[in-house]
């Protein structure tokens, strides 16, 4: 059950700083396009900045950079939103955890904050720690009423399964808007959009990316992804909705690799929650960016045929 007290604390601002994610921009541009456009339809003007870089979470937890390098990078990105007096909205679980966790850390450690600010001062910036970071799924859940009013293309009869990913609920054990073990807010969003929720056993399992394991421990990663995909296939949803572009990329691409290596026939389209909401809100099909999807393309077309293009 969602923690409604936490949800109520999320503001409904006029404008929000939309933090772009690396995978969303460069692999699945539909996520980037849909996140901004859907927020605009729901009454929040997205603001972005081309000075915004990556969150730096990947390079940090890949141990290429020490936290001493990541703290200022996080502070720099957060200060871009602070300059404008806005909160930040991210589309990726990784960005959410990383910005939140390290931001929280600096806010509670004056010494570190001072040394980070010394570095930022050199570039004419300052990190105050006033802004908050929200995940776009949180924002959608907060804007439930607005969402319900604006559904233009109901997902009638579409079976949707959910995958929450690890770094939002796991890392946000006490800060996320839902319980880490049995979340249900994505299901609620799907029902608002008119879809039909399909449960499956491995819902709360990791997608198998294993952060860097997909690169240097590929056997482990693939083995885990296979169990996940097998369970998804059993439930046979029309769409598997995720809220993290990294999970999106793993689940989408690994299906194809299995298919090519004759280790199964996986054809489940993976959609980011921003794309699903964009679809429900009636965004132009080109904006959904389905051309960048690797697996289940035929099924995706079929879904579009059923709900109208």
């Amino acid at each position, binding site marked *: 059950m969602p923690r409604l007290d936490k949800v109520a604390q999320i503001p409904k601002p006029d404008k929000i700083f939309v933090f772009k994610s690396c995978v969303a921009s460069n692999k699945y541009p539909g996520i980037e396009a849909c996140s901004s456009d859907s927020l605009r339809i729901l009454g929040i003007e997205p603001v972005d900045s081309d000075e915004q870089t990556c969150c730096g979470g990947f390079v940090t937890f890949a141990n290429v950079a020490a936290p001493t390098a990541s703290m200022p990078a996080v502070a720099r990105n957060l200060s871009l939103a602070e300059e404008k007096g806005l909160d930040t909205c991210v589309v990726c679980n990784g960005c959410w955890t990383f910005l939140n966790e390290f931001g929280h850390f600096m806010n509670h450690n004056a010494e570190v904050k001072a040394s980070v600010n010394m570095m930022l001062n050199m570039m004419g910036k300052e990190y105050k720690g006033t802004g908050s970071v929200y995940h776009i799924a949180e924002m959608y859940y907060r804007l439930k009423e607005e969402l319900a009013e604006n559904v233009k293309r109901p997902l009638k009869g579409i079976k949707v399964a959910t995958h929450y990913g690890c770094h939002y609920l796991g890392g946000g*054990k006490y800060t996320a808007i839902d*319980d880490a*073990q*049995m979340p249900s807010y994505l299901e609620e969003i799907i029902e608002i959009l008119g879809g039909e929720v399909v449960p499956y*056993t491995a819902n*709360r399992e990791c997608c198998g990316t294993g952060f860097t394991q997909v690169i240097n421990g590929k056997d482990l990663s693939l083995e885990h992804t296979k169990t996940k995909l097998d369970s998804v296939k059993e439930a046979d949803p029309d769409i598997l909705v995720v809220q993290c572009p990294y999970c999106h990329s793993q689940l989408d691409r690994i299906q194809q690799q299995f298919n090519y290596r004759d280790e199964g026939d996986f054809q489940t389209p993976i959609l980011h929650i921003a794309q699903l909401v964009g679809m429900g809100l009636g965004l132009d099909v080109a904006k959904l960016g389905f051309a960048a999807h690797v697996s289940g393309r035929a099924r995706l077309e079929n879904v579009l045929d059923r709900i109208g293009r």
Partner: protein
Amino acid sequence: MSKKTLVIGGGIAGITAAQKIAQNGGDVILIEKEDALGGNFAKLTYTFPVLGDAKALVSQEVQKVQTTPSIEILTNTTLTACQGSVGDFSVELKTLSGTRQEIVGAIIVAAGFHYMEPTAYTEYSYGRSPKVVTSLEFEKMAAENRLPQGNVRVVFVHCVGSRDKAKGYVYCSKICCSYSAKHAIMMKKANPQSKSYVFYIDIRALGKGYEEFIRSAMEEHNVRYIRGRVAKVLESEGKLLVRAEDSLMGNPVEVEADLVVLASAMEPPVGSRDLAAMLGIATDEYGFFQDVESNVRPCHSSKPGIFLAGSCTQPMEIASAVAMGGLSASEALAVTR
């Protein structure tokens, strides 16, 4: 003339205290907020470490207090106010028919405990799957002969809410190890075809015969004990998948189960802090009533004239609750004469 003693709580500790005072010539008002005496004891089917008939035992004790003329029993009654000091407390009781004032010389708090509702343990599917039950619900199932039949696997999970800083309490609930063994044996007796698995962290058998009792579950009743805390219980095609680590072997394991029994923590009785504030006595960080000195004065509350008995002070088995009821009775008699 001696004064009356007010006993709060009609569980086994309260019943014992009332009996002992009456045996020694004192007068007692025994109040119970529910409509029958017996407390948590009355909800059980068997006792441990000797499998005694819990219902028969407790009704025998209840009958004793009911037939003693110097014990006035007020069910559906709560304490609403308390003033005064040792030897002269004026208390206000709210009964079904209205409020009444009483003057008592001493008060014995035997408010019992509450089985934690493990609703926070969403990883165990509690509340979502009807096949995941608490130990108390298991007792009820056993009493009503509703235990699963046939070739089934039953998983018992220790430490649900105990020894858990994140979702429950840091303390150990002390009796779960023993009663889970009891449940496993009950399961085996009710359905010899069934297989029982107990997931434990440490086995704490803190009483006479307890270790032998738990060993007998393993040795005579063929219950599998696996060291490791259950990580999650998933529903899959009508079965429950129980994931845990067999931490003695260091391997993750999965059990396909038909029933999962959660040994939920013993927590302070509902409203213990309010009751403590009304009486002017201290509670500990969890809400259990605080004794003034736990070694030699376990039943003295922080206020003279108010004594504590039973599991409202700490998780406790029946035998200790009875002993503590007797102890607090003698302390109460000492100040009411």
